[in-house]
């Protein structure tokens, strides 16, 4: 177990370093820079700016300096949101994205698991067919379409939710549902497959033979092992959902991190883009690590080495 954790920690550092290197090179490779703008600067001043951001140094020296800073957790000032440093941008946006994400995930897990279990237990029935059709639609329809329909219906036709914004639970409901739909649909399908697989296993037959009720068999014995594929799906999904959704945050004007991912890249905000990419890498890695750990808890047959 200890070895497993240590190996993963080393893996994390190597992964972060690789991601840093690739991002650094990609950002420098595209044309334009943080100083390009509509009102052009006289060359003398542009030189000063490049010097301040150390963009006048050879690439390997820029790389060494930035790697040193990042290693110390200092991502520097955002190059476009000039009044903030990268850590401030992240610490303001991450809790918002995370809150929305937790809400959306709770919704997705509750709905997805229930639908999946019901579908599996009543396999081949009308309910199964309807739930799985809904799930297919949920996966296929992009979230901006769902958001658009939800706004037309629940903001304009039946005005029960505010159109956008942040600060009350009511403002959280629509974006959380729109964001959670895709995940709910995925979870429903995965749960159904997992349940069907588990229900045909020997230990389930044994449980039935003991005389346990259908519900007890399904929840106590089949569900934990049916959850394994769901958990593997949730690991990366949580990392993605915590760092914010570009589309949903934009449509509902939610001040999370999602939109920064796109804007930082488009506006050549080297420092902010780097901070976000590394944050996402870190979260993704940690979540996958937690998934591996949870395998040990959910399935006694799995041993961590």
């Amino acid at each position, binding site marked *: 177990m200890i070895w497993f954790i240590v190996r993963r920690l080393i893996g994390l550092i190597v992964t972060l370093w690789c991601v840093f290197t690739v991002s650094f090179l990609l950002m420098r490779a*595209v*044309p*334009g*820079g943080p100083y*390009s*703008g*509509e*009102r*052009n*600067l*006289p060359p*003398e*001043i542009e*030189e*000063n*700016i490049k010097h*301040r951001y150390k963009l*006048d140094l050879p690439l390997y020296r820029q790389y060494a300096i930035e790697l040193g800073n990042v290693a110390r957790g200092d991502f520097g*000032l955002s190059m*476009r*949101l*000039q*009044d*903030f*440093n990268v850590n*401030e*941008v992240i610490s*303001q*946006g991450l*809790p*918002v994205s*995370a*809150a929305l994400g*937790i*809400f959306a995930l*709770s919704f997705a897990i509750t709905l997805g698991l229930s639908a999946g279990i019901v579908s599996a237990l009543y396999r081949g029935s009308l309910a199964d067919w309807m739930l799985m059709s809904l799930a297919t639609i949920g996966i296929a329809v992009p979230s901006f379409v769902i958001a658009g329909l939800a*706004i037309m219906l629940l*903001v*304009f036709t039946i*005005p029960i939710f*505010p*159109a*956008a*914004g*942040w*600060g*009350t*639970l009511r403002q*959280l409901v629509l974006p959380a549902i729109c964001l959670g739909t895709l995940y709910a649909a995925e979870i429903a399908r995965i749960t159904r497959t997992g349940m069907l697989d588990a229900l045909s296993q020997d230990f389930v037959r044994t449980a039935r033979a003991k005389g346990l009720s259908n519900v007890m068999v399904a929840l106590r014995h089949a569900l934990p092992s049916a959850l394994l594929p769901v958990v593997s799906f949730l690991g990366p999904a949580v990392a993605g959902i915590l760092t914010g959704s570009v589309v949903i945050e*934009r*449509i*509902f*004007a939610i*001040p*999370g991190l999602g*939109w*920064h991912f796109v804007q930082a890249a*488009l*506006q050549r905000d080297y420092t902010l883009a780097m901070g976000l990419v590394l944050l996402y890498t870190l979260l993704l890695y940690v979540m996958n690590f937690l998934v591996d750990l949870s395998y040990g*808890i959910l399935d006694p047959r799995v041993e961590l080495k």
Partner: protein
Amino acid sequence: MLGRTWFLGVLFFAGVAAVGWAVYGGRLPPADFTFVNETEVASIDPALITGQPEGRIVMALFEGLARLRADNTKAEPGAAEKWEISDDGRVYTFRLRDDARWSNGDPVTARDFLYSIRRLIDPFTFSRYSYQAWYIENAKRYNLGGSTLVAGDPVEVELHPPADARNTVRGKLLLGKLVGIDLRDSKQTKPKSARDRIYVVEIDGHEQRFQVADASDAIETGVQRCRQVLLDFRQVGVRVIDDRTLEIRLTNPTPYFLDLLGFYPFSPVHRGCLEKYGTPDWTKPENIVTNGAYRLVTRRIRDRIRLKRSDNYWGRENVRLDVIDALSIDNRTTALNLYMTGMIDWVTVPPAEVLRELLKSNPPRNDLNPAPQLTTYYFLLNNTRPPLNDKRVRQALALALDREEVTRVATGAGEVPALSLVPPSMPDYTQQPCKPFNPEAARKLLAEAGFPDGRGFPKLEILYNTDQAHQAIAELVRKQWQRELGITASLRNEEWGSFQDSQQQLKYLVARRAWVGDYLDPNTYLDMFVTNGENNCTGFSNAQYDQLIADAAKEPDQKKRRQILESAERLLMDEMPVIPVYFYVSRNMVRPHVRGFYNNLQDLHALHAIWLDPNVNDKDPRPNEYMEPVK
């Protein structure tokens, strides 16, 4: 089993607590007036910003010597209560208000303005709008640093500030006379960088050698490191006469100088605040010191900026809104949804496709009144590349462009087809139009240039920044040129950063561009196209044109100056380095109960003038000021 339940319970509780904290931590009581300020502002430092969203905030927080009237954006007394202008139009003497106060209670003095103007033109401030101050005597030379210095100039050598000093503190200044400039590398004939120069400066009778270099840079013996060498600031035409009196000397009489002073780059900043906290910490709500009608209360990234009426502002009795929220929402549909559900009072730009429908509504809406704006949409032609280096080809392209069709089909808010670069709304000026749509003449010119019916004409490429509206226009123009001239063109889109670079480095053949007038004078459009102008972007170079622009700048007689500028535009519209396409209109939507909001050419809406009429609802037929025609 118990462990698992317990674990899930904790996880659930933690989740609920986190959501609660994140949501309720963001709760604020509602503001009196809420508007959508488009994208997240890049900064609230007046010297650093260039965009409209930033301007709306900064012009509420800070106030220059003059401020711009809410109705027609002409200069009126701001922090200065009055001023005198010398007979030759070059010397302005400002008398500051006795009751002009910073938000911390300090008086606003002439020294604050001196400090702020110097900071604006310091090459280390990185101001994009510093050129607005170049009208001041020697300000351009100061701003451009070492590149403009010649032997004999009085100079200031700024040493490096101590390593632990705030980044807003200047290093020690050594004043002296420049003896000459050597090159670091004697093999060079021209410095590649400002860091290649060695400045020989005579200070107190001794010659010393300086080089712009960091502590880590290698350096010759006998040379001292410094941060920068600039013209002595005492040569710049800004002078403090006493605490309440400031004198500004201009190089040329500049009739629009007062209007410039009302624009945000000239806002004063509080030296004590800057030097105590440094950049960017001085802009935090808890630190910032401002002198405008509003002060900064809350600032949340991508959410909102909250402003509150300042208790120290000299004109506080006439500021009627107490709390204002500026939301940063860059999705136009979201902004419109908020407006339509009554959550906000002002939307700056509704989505184009909806706007078209809204304009058709019957009875006409009482909250929408598009009006001419000082912005021109045009195509840049790369004058350095064949076949566009041939004037006849450029003229042919312009003649074959059907602007009416563009504004009818591709834009939707009643934009006006443009035959000149300077918008028709420019006061005291007569546009010099190019020839209108004439495919016959275009074909003839193209044939003369050696491409009858477009035969042998290389493929053109139209570059635009990724945006549906620009794409629609480029697509239409491509078809028009194909139809009328028989030439083929392809489209290329780039996102903003690359797009700027391509224009700068002339890596295009045809590119779209729009220019918002910085001030109410044709010069803001015309001086772009002087040889090597920073915003020229076409490679266009014409000695006669350069001369006209220079003459106009020096001309004290308004009528003559106008005629010179008109002949400059005439020349430009004959040479056709650019093809004007249309003039923008403003597209604000403003609730009927909002008063003191006016349409004007610069689409500037001073927040301090806005108030709400509680007796008016959205259905009220009585028009507010916004629905009146532009003055």
